């Protein structure tokens, strides 16, 4: 019997979390968001999602097979990358560009560093930033949501020939008699035309033919599910949103005619998707408690600064990538304090006992012999 014994060192029990489980639940929580996106934009969005996710998975498989990176496609992380990437590009993004972007996301954003866990930058955002720099026109070309016939007809740009410029969607939109809303995003409308969309419409994404992503409220709800089950660190979105909200409020109070109201800023563009699903990518965010707050705060601040003051209407992606780059530095300055490292001057108020010698408790009793004075040395004499 002793021959069959197995040795493994402590601890011998495990908590109930595993990488696959966490990732799987993130995919579950993304499904409603994706479904809504498809509901908004029809088969183009669906095709884009399928193509991009498939590319990510194939690329991951290729690099795992060739031994370049660790992990496997069954850990679902590449699925998350694909879905988030698809949610963050326009629904009519040409499918061939989707393939390029998905490949870059995994190859450059993940495999290059050795695969899951080792990447410094958020892979989906590396892919998207590459696409934004490579195909800036296509990635800024949104179409309006809830177009009639969206479930039977592709947005023309989706089916562009590989390597070729996608056809203009303007003509196509004219056919739909919707040329007045040629697909400027609310942020673009604000930045270039000074039009501030209603925050309520933005929250629900249901305000008619708007060029927006899935409803921020839906994203918050799905994120809340993840946070409540501890699959996601709630502090990061909390930090991002409060820092962005704070900066936006201060600027709004300073000059309400020049800056949009904070609610517009919070619910427009990709801020919610970024704060809840992208900034929270654990691999690329700090592990330390203070670090998490600094990281989230930095993202919120940079997002607002880029949106309000730079040439681009949207800055969430760049803010997160920059914070990813700063993550090792942030972690370095926010290492946790070792228990007992800082001499605690004051005891916690909630403590039941004080360390002061409790003179009042010195009461004689029959059963217990109470020493009269404190013994200072009770070691037996050395022999």
């Amino acid at each position, binding site marked *: 019997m002793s021959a069959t014994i197995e040795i493994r060192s402590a601890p011998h029990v495990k908590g109930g979390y595993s990488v696959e489980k966490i990732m799987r639940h993130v995919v579950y929580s993304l499904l409603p968001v994706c479904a809504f996106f498809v509901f908004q934009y029809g088969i183009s969005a669906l095709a884009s999602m399928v193509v991009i996710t498939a590319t990510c998975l194939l690329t991951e498989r290729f690099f795992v097979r060739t031994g370049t990176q660790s992990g496997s496609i069954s850990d679902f992380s590449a699925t998350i990358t694909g879905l988030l990437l698809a949610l963050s590009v326009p629904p009519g993004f040409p499918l061939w560009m989707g393939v390029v972007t998905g490949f870059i996301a995994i190859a450059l954003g993940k495999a290059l560093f050795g695969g899951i866990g080792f990447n410094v930058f958020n892979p989906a955002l590396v892919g998207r930033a590459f696409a934004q720099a490579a195909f*800036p*026109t296509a990635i*800024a*070309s949104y179409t309006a949501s809830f177009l009639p016939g969206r479930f039977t007809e592709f947005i023309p740009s989706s089916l562009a020939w590989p390597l070729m410029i996608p056809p203009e969607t*303007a003509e196509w939109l004219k056919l739909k008699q919707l040329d007045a809303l*040629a697909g*400027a995003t609310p942020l673009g409308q604000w930045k*270039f*035309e000074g039009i501030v969309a209603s925050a309520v419409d933005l929250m629900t994404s249901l305000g008619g033919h708007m060029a927006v992503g899935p409803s921020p409220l839906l994203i918050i709800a799905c994120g809340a599910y993840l946070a409540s089950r501890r699959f996601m660190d709630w502090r990061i979105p909390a930090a991002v949103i409060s820092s962005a909200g704070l900066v936006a409020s201060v600027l709004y109070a300073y000059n309400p005619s020049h800056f949009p109201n904070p609610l517009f800023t919070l619910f427009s563009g990709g801020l919610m998707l970024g704060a809840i699903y992208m900034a929270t990518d654990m691999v690329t965010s700090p592990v330390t408690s203070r670090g998490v707050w600094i990281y989230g705060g930095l993202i919120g601040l940079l997002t607002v600064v880029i949106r309000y003051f730079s*040439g681009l209407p949207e800055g969430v992606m760049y803010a997160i990538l920059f914070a990813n780059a700063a993550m090792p530095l942030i972690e370095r300055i926010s290492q946790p304090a070792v228990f007992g490292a800082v001499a605690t001057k004051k005891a916690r108020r909630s403590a039941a006992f004080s360390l002061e010698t409790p003179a009042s408790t010195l009461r004689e009793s029959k059963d217990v012999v109470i020493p009269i004075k404190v013994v200072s040395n009770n070691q037996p004499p050395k022999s």
Partner: protein
Amino acid sequence: MSTEIPVSVSKTTPTVAMVRTLGLVSAVCGLIIVGAYQSTFDAVADNKRIALERAVFKVIPAAKSIVEFLVLPGGAIEKKVGASDTAVGALKFYAAYDDTGKLAGIAAEGSAKGYADSVRLLYGYSPDCQCIVGVGVVSMRETPGIGDKILVDKAYLKNFVALDVKLNAELSALANEVKTVKHGTKTNPWQIDAIAGATITSRAVGRAINDSAQALLPKLVPGLDKIRSKP
């Protein structure tokens, strides 16, 4: 470049030798440089002149020759002579004349912040129609393929066939500010229809023209008659 400086030298060379070598090198190099400078001087000057002429001719199609002028802060217009420093606050412009020596148009520079850096451009002003008749870029660092569409986009260049920059009644400012509007929403002759996808650069062009014209034209127009014919 690593210029490793020997800290301790075991055997020091006499100072004379060092000075001698440095002198020799300086002499040789001085000769080479001066030679190169002299031999290319004319070609470079020619190149620069040709480049300037080409730029001006491009924005004022009828032009055949140009003269450089300054508008002094007081409003006086005088011909620019030599490479001397321009007086503070003076505005530079080029008057272009046709082959008969008649004023064909005015060219001036403007600049504004674009997507990546400032966009510097040269625009041609026609006193006859009181409008901008051409725009060319002097320098920019806009994104190739996006921002640099302002050079080639046909629909965009149509904006500058006759962009209205009339002065108001008091001749103190433009009657209507030059303004860049979102692609497809141009309604007035003083508006610029932006390029979709390059709104930022398009607006920089509009701002550059507006800022420069607002400063130059109110001073230039009253004195236009003085330069009607080639000096």
